[in-house]
């Protein structure tokens, strides 16, 4: 193979393909956001509109809603490529699969995670969070949502070959999300008590770094199993 195409080019081409496809079909970006908004709306209706109560449970609600709406896009992450055969081409190509997988995960995050991070201030206002907690919410979402994409992609890769993988995938992935949920919500909690929450962010960052390195390997071997 000639070195005409660098690894960087592979990364950008896979990434831009996924993002362009998503932007052509706006619903893929808008639907998880709407879902996020609706889940958040349901809680005050179910629990009651007292501002103090909402403020107390806001971190948990925002994060659970974020988990659920990331799950929505995950099923599509490899499904279309699997169906039209381009996933097989990626596996057969001489380039490392983990790299193209990394690009796909980043694309998934750009499509579902990033809009959530950008919209987070609005959601935080809906839930009556004050400005300190608002910063923490945005920061935890910024570090946490790529982590969700990475872990979720493992589950998506394992179930892509199955007819009805969606529900099974959530069963596989949600228990693995628990540490992210715990640290993210506790960071928001501590920040609303105006304490330093750098520790939780650091742990989230460490988990993201580990996931960045390990998850692509797991995802690519899972994809090889699913496709074969």
């Amino acid at each position, binding site marked *: 193979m000639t070195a005409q195409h660098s690894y960087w080019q592979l990364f950008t081409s896979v990434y831009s393909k996924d993002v362009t496809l998503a932007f052509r079909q706006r619903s893929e970006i808008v639907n998880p956001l709407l879902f996020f908004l609706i889940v958040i709306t349901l809680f005050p209706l179910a629990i009651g509109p007292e501002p103090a109560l909402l403020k107390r449970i806001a971190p948990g609600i925002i994060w659970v809603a974020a988990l659920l709406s990331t799950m929505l896009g995950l099923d599509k992450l490899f499904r279309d490529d699997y169906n039209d055969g381009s996933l097989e081409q990626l596996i057969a190509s001489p380039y490392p699969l983990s790299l193209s997988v990394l690009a796909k995960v980043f694309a998934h995050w750009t499509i579902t995670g990033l809009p959530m991070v950008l919209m987070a201030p609005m959601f935080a206002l809906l839930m009556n969070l004050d400005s300190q907690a608002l910063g923490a919410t945005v920061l935890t979402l910024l570090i946490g949502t790529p982590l969700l994409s990475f872990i979720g992609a493992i589950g998506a890769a394992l179930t892509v070959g199955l007819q009805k993988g969606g529900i099974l995938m959530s069963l*596989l992935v949600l228990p693995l999300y*628990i540490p992210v949920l715990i640290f993210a919500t506790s960071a928001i909690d501590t920040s609303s008590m105006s304490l330093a929450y750098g520790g939780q962010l650091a742990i989230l960052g460490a988990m993201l770094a580990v996931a960045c390195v390990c998850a692509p390997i797991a995802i690519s071997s899972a994809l090889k199993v699913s496709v074969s």
Partner: protein
Amino acid sequence: MWKWLHPYAKAERAYQLCNTLMPYFAVVTVVCLVVGWVWGLAYAPADYQQKDSYRIIFIHVPSAILSMGAYSSMAIAAVIALVWQIRNAELAVIAIAPVGAAMTAIALITGAAWGKPMWGAWWVWDARLTSELILLFLYLGVLSLYHAFEDKKSAGRAACILAVVGVINLPIIHFSVEWWNTLHQGATITKFDTSAIDSSMLWPLLINIAAFAGFVGVVTLIRLKNEILQCERHRPWVRELVGRGE
């Protein structure tokens, strides 16, 4: 160094090894289970604080220990299966998973039955209980992933990958849950320290742990034999074996 292990990668040898090991595990299980339960239920002295309710410990602690032990052995088998591509190790993963799930379920049920008289609630969001529950989810995930695949070969490999991912996450989950618990409500149970236990209670506990370990061994071997037969059902040696009426 690995030479003596190599033959066991062959299904037939592994099957025979299962047969050889089975009686030992069976004897340990039956003897220890009978002795341990009778001793634990009838002869061990009552605890001065918890009275007779503490007798649940004789099944709660062994099942909790074995639930984690089974997961680690499952993960080791999964790593072996993925790295060296040994089919028998994959089968072992599938054989252990239901046993481990049963152990986890026992630990949870007995924990709840012990918690009700002691803490006044069937379930408290204690760190250990929560991580045990998550462990059950991980087991169920491996099992349902395996059963979702039509092709058992890729099913085994997928289950192995999930088991390895789970075992990497397990310490993180355990640590985070413990940390979450101390943050939210403070420790609810006094730590059960083995050195603090009187030998009249320690011995039946140890015997029960041996009994549960033996049970996990026996059932895993039975299930492993089934899996081997299932996967080699068209081979001549299986036919010969079944033809002999074994």
